[in-house]
């Protein structure tokens, strides 16, 4: 099931906002603020920074809304603006954990890790929202962004590739690596909890 259906009243609000109607723009803000802000918050893990980024994304939307032609869903277009704002911000900060280029470019020797080992803890039935949220926060930014856009927000790989300026294959590869890393993080968390309970 598609998770980004059109929102009732959105098209009319877009058309009115394109004609300069401030109230219509406020409606668009109300429709999209939660998803835009949540994406920013997941990427920077800081409320003040996330609010600044959401503000910048909506100001860019205000300046550029006249150029929206409906070639893609509005939410996809809005997220593309937001992703650009977030990426610019992360690049300015110098990405303390892992360089975004490294995690966005599969040619950098960062191929999919293989899991050819012994069986250990099974994740099924053991995950809660808090644990998963924490693990997502530990992902490198490039992995986190693709994971949030695809698995949380429900965008398709072709939409994500358009937002991030990468190939569809790259988007799939990044998502796979993100899930593999999450699996490792979640299993190591399970092991720690198990050891602690002994």
């Amino acid at each position, binding site marked *: 099931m598609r998770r980004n259906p059109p929102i009732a009243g959105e098209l009319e609000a877009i058309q009115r906002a394109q004609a300069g109607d401030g109230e219509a723009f406020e409606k668009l803000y109300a429709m999209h603020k*939660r998803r835009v802000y949540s*994406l920013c918050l997941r990427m920077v893990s800081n409320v003040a920074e996330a*609010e600044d980024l959401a503000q910048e994304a909506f100001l860019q939307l205000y300046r550029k809304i006249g150029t929206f032609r409906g070639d893609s869903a509005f939410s996809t277009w809005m997220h593309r603006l937001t992703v650009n704002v977030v990426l610019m911000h992360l690049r300015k900060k110098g990405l303390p954990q892992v360089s975004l280029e490294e995690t966005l470019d599969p040619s950098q020797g960062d191929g999919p890790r293989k*899991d050819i080992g012994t069986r250990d803890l099974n994740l099924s039935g053991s995950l809660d929202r808090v644990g998963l949220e924490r693990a997502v926060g530990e992902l490198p930014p490039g992995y986190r962004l693709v994971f949030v856009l695809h698995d949380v927000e429900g965008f398709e790989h072709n939409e994500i590739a358009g937002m991030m300026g990468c190939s569809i294959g790259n988007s799939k590869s990044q998502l796979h690596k993100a899930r593999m890393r999450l699996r490792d993080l979640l299993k190591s968390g399970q092991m720690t909890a198990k050891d602690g309970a002994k």
Partner: protein
Amino acid sequence: MSQQDMKNISADCAEFQEQLPELIGENQDPAAHPHLEHCANCSELVRDLLYIAQQAKLLLPLHDPSPAVWEKIEAGMGKDPKQK
């Protein structure tokens, strides 16, 4: 199990896992892949990855930005918020 058997399984696993991003990315059912009929390790891997993807839906956005964000946007749009 002989060392040769172990090597063959590892090679099969590596080949299967090379295909996995594409298998999952295309919304195919990787659980139906023939390799999984005899590989408990890769079966568990696929089960975990699909479970993570399924559980990710729990993380839908829950928080709104503070009202100050709209006030700043409105100011940036060249409006006086008090005129509303």
